[in-house]
């Protein structure tokens, strides 16, 4: 197998780090200290703050499930079917995970192999970087959530 190129999916450039301990990359306002994800382009979202400067900060890699669901039907474009347009839709879970330290709740797909019955509000999740879809030479990457203690039989999926 030749080496494939790994790139963040279009739109998510600079949203996360890759490697052994990947993290979402948030912004912290250098004036008031509030956090934002995804990156802020137009100044601090805190209406009481006039800050325009931010530092990039890796967000907590673990958080707790705020809520969760799944996609039993194939979402419409611009969603890209991982196996190509002709492939059958494989349902996947989606979780909104709350990061305590940053006070942010962030949605993402859950890694494959995890079903709706494996999730519950309050359960601990960890951030991974995974393939959103692939084309001929390139894996397009995105962040996903993975249960810290996978349910029996579920192998937690690729990362």
């Amino acid at each position: 197998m030749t080496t494939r190129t790994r790139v963040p999916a279009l739109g998510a450039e600079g949203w996360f780090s890759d490697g052994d301990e990947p993290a979402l990359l948030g912004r912290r306002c250098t004036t008031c200290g509030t956090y934002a994800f995804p990156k802020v382009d137009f100044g601090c979202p805190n209406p009481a703050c006039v800050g325009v400067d931010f530092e990039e900060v890796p967000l907590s890699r673990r958080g707790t499930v705020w809520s969760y669901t799944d996609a039993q039907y194939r979402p419409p474009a611009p969603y890209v079917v991982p196996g190509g347009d002709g492939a059958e839709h494989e349902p996947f879970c989606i979780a909104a995970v709350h990061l305590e330290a940053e006070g942010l709740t962030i949605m993402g797909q859950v890694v494959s192999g995890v079903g709706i019955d494996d999730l519950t509000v309050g359960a601990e999740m960890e951030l991974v970087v995974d393939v959103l879809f692939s084309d001929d030479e390139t894996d397009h990457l995105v962040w996903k959530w993975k249960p810290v203690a996978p349910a029996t039989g579920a192998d937690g999926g690729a990362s």
Partner: protein
Amino acid sequence: MAGDVVVLGVGMHPWGKWGRNFVEYGVAAARDALRDAGVDWSEVQFVSGADTMRNGYPGYVSGATFAQALGWNGARVASSYAACASGVTAIEAARTRILAGMCDVALVVGADTTPKGFLAPNAGDRPTDPDWLRFRLVGATNPTYFALSARRRMDLYGATSEDFARVKVKNASNGLSNPNARYQKPVTVEDVLASPIVANPLHLLEICATSDGGAALVLASAEFAARHAGSAGAPVRVAAVSTVTPSYPQTRIDLPDLATDSTAVVAEPDRPFKESIAFAAYEEAGIGPEDLSLAEVYDLSTALELDWYEDIGLCGRGEAEGLLRDGATELDGRIPVNPSGGLACFGEAVPAQAIAQVCEVTWQLRGQATGRQVEGATVGITANQGLFGHGSSVLLAR
């Protein structure tokens, strides 16, 4: 009362999947509303359109589109877009113009023709548009967001799939004899639970469809209304209109965002966004939830109707299932919700929907809601939620 804005006329084109030009529905609804008001089109001084994003340029300038279709009459015009709250933004444009004394009588119109299936963003790669990003990066459809709310109710408050299904059964029953409803057939809990799951825990029959339809209002100053006969008896009064935006930090993931604001520096506001929408209306009108005869709320899903019970103050957090199980929100209950049949029976025609909610409350307060009348109704509220921080609420009284 002097200084009041009243609903002089209401009209709708029936909801369906007609596949015709949206202008046709808007014009039909407008003519109905003018007839109901006893007002000639030539008397209308201001036309306020609620825009559709799916029908090209005529939809972006809906006020002018409807004005031209009715025959140019020289009226001033505005066109509003506020996602699902567009209808009330158009109402508010007309109401404030009347309140400012710059207009006596205005026509508000919204209409839509919708494509089949999931609502999807406009075509083309737009990686800075959150509405594009949520589909591409997460595959998050509108039902994804509805389902996050539903699942949270189950895990936190013990809601069951049967509870959610019961909302649909109630609304389907209410809509049976509503001539403007798209779906007029009874539904059982078993029917709901037998329909395919779209986004767990929500089934196909629990998620509102997209529809074609049109709704219109004639709004007028109380003085103008006093000079006109219009409908029998005292006209329905617009007691308040709310179109508030969220207060930072917005702590619930709302369409189309992938993340909330941060609570690290500023604590969550006392009233979360959806609660603040109705609260602003109550505060403006000096009316409280205890004064309500009925409510029309945006049941984009069955479970979201339960969220609204709490958001508009019918009960405390986590108590909505109890209210439903007690039958309090049935047509003959203590506080009927969605007597029209709601989105469950209509499906959503985006720019028309929030106007249609006001039409229904008006018919209810006039005692004209044949087959679904809430006896002795005097005060009603509408509540609605849109994308991108939009939401609306209208309080009507008679």
